[in-house]
Every structure is written in C-alpha cells, then in structure tokens.
C-alpha cells in the first residue's frame, strides 16, 4: 500500500504501524509517532493497522529552546 511518512510517499507491505516502522529502519530507535494527526503510543503501534493513504509522522529528539 502507499502511505506518507513525514510527507514522503512510501510503498509498504506492512499491515501495522509497528511492522512498517521496522521495515523503514526505525526499529529500536527513540521515536514518537502519529497517524493522521493522532498520537499513537509505542505500545499501540503493533495494534495500529495502516490503510492506503495514511499519513504517518515519525519524530525524534532534537535541539530546542
């Protein structure tokens, strides 16, 4: 299916957010996620099914003021 990850189009086979993140190289990273503007906790990623056209945000720590 075709999804958007941080606004970039990605083709994934994965059915869940957890599997998709692993496939994209995010496994084991310190990240937080949202799907279609809603926060998805790490514990909820394996149970979060993805659909064609979903917009996923993946964020990590960065410098801030």
């Amino acid at each position, binding site marked *: 299916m075709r999804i958007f990850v941080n606004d970039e189009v990605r083709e994934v086979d994965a059915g869940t957010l957890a599997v998709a993140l692993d496939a994209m190289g995010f496994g084991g990273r310190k990240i937080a996620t949202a799907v279609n503007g809603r926060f998805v906790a790490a514990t909820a990623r394996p149970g979060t099914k993805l659909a064609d056209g979903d917009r996923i945000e993946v964020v990590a*720590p960065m410098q801030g*003021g």
Partner: protein
Amino acid sequence: MSFYGVELGSRLLLGTSRYPSPAVLGEAIKASKAEVVTVSLRRESGSERAGQTFWSLVRALGVRVLPNTAGCHSVKEAVTTAHMARELFDTTWIKLEVIGESDTLQPDVFGLVEAARILSEDGFEVFPYTTEDLVVADRLVEAGCRVLMPWGAPIGSARGLNNVYGLKSLRAHFPDIPLVVDAGLGVPSHAAAAMELGYDAVLLNTAVAEAGDPVAMARAFALAVEAGRTAYLAQPLEPRDMAAPSTPVIGKAALGD
C-alpha cells in the same frame, strides 16, 4: 525553588538549540550550571540518526529535560506534540507554546489556555510560554498551570525586559506561583534584572548559543542570575526622583563665606 514538586538548585534554564557544535553545547550547559534544559522533537528519517545522537549527548549530561511544543500554531498540533514528547522524553513536563503571530512569535494566549487545560487534565505538568498579561495568567492557573513563563521580549530578539511594569505586576499578583522569564534576553544584565524583580528563574537559549564564546556567556549568565537573586533577597532600594546625600551633612565643617 521547585517546579511541580521538583527541587532545583539552579535558577537558570537553558535551551539546547543553535550552538556551533554538540561539544560547545555540552560545555555551555556545564558552565551555566543549568539543571533543566529545553529540548524539542522533529521529523527523522529511517536513514539518519541525528535525533538519536543528540539524545545520547543530553542523557550523558545528566540534566532534566523540558520538552517544548515550539512551532505549533494550533491547539491540536500542540496537544499532539505534547503527547509525543511525553512518551519520547519520559516526562510529564511540557513547555507549552502555541504561537499566534509569526513575526513576533507572540503566544496565541487563547489557544494556550485551551491547550493548557486539556494537557493539565491529562496529567501533564504545563510550563506555558505566555505574555505578561495578568488575566491570561489567571486563566492559565485556573487551567492547572503551577508555573508561568512570561516572555521578556520576542524569542531570539535579545531586547531584554520589554515591559518591566507588567512583569512586576505579575510577580505581585502571583506571589506563590514560580515565575520564569522565558525568551528575549540578550545579555546577563537582562537576566539579573529579571531576578531582581523577584522572578524565580530565567530561561534563555540564543543569547548563549549565538554568543561569540557560548561557554563564557553561559558562565556570565549563571553569575548574573545568582547576583540578581541575591540582590532581590537583599531588598534593593526603590528608585526616587530627588537626590539623597549618602554622606551625612550633619557636622560638616562650615567653610563657606
């Protein structure tokens, strides 16, 4: 001084952005003696590890982090960002920014109050980046905020305390709420001035990060914060219009015509 029950020895909170290098950032944090640093979150791709490297650096410094919602312009965006930050940084603290105007980065105080209420009810401990407006401050406290962070001046402007009267009023109105001047400080004397008003702490970033020597400037701010706090406790004089001779005139020799 404590924020939400957490005792802190340093009254200087430091941002982690815009330093010339990670090494300088680390040294500046040490020189500032800050125990709390602000952090943020941004998109990361599967192939880059910038965020992971930054996090390792902060962890190694052993400081407490205060994540922000910088760049958020709506309540929804700020609330979702806060949830992501809580999980990412494993803290209920959130520096809540809801920006209302792009040129001044002035807070959208209406959205701020709404977001503060939503987050407080959800167990967050909110540090709202606000203006010095008393009524907004009242609403933020009603919404559950137990720390207030009024701006000194627009973020990154280095203008210091734009509205000393307003900041003094806020201090007088909220004697028991920790007040932090956040943003707009340019030089250590600005920080000292905030502390002399009785503010509990200051939060700054650019003034240190973009100084010619950030590590020396971090040390200078630490000294200024300590000097300002000590001066406040020592009860400074109120300014007056007329001169008052410091040398006693009684007993002065009569030498005139």
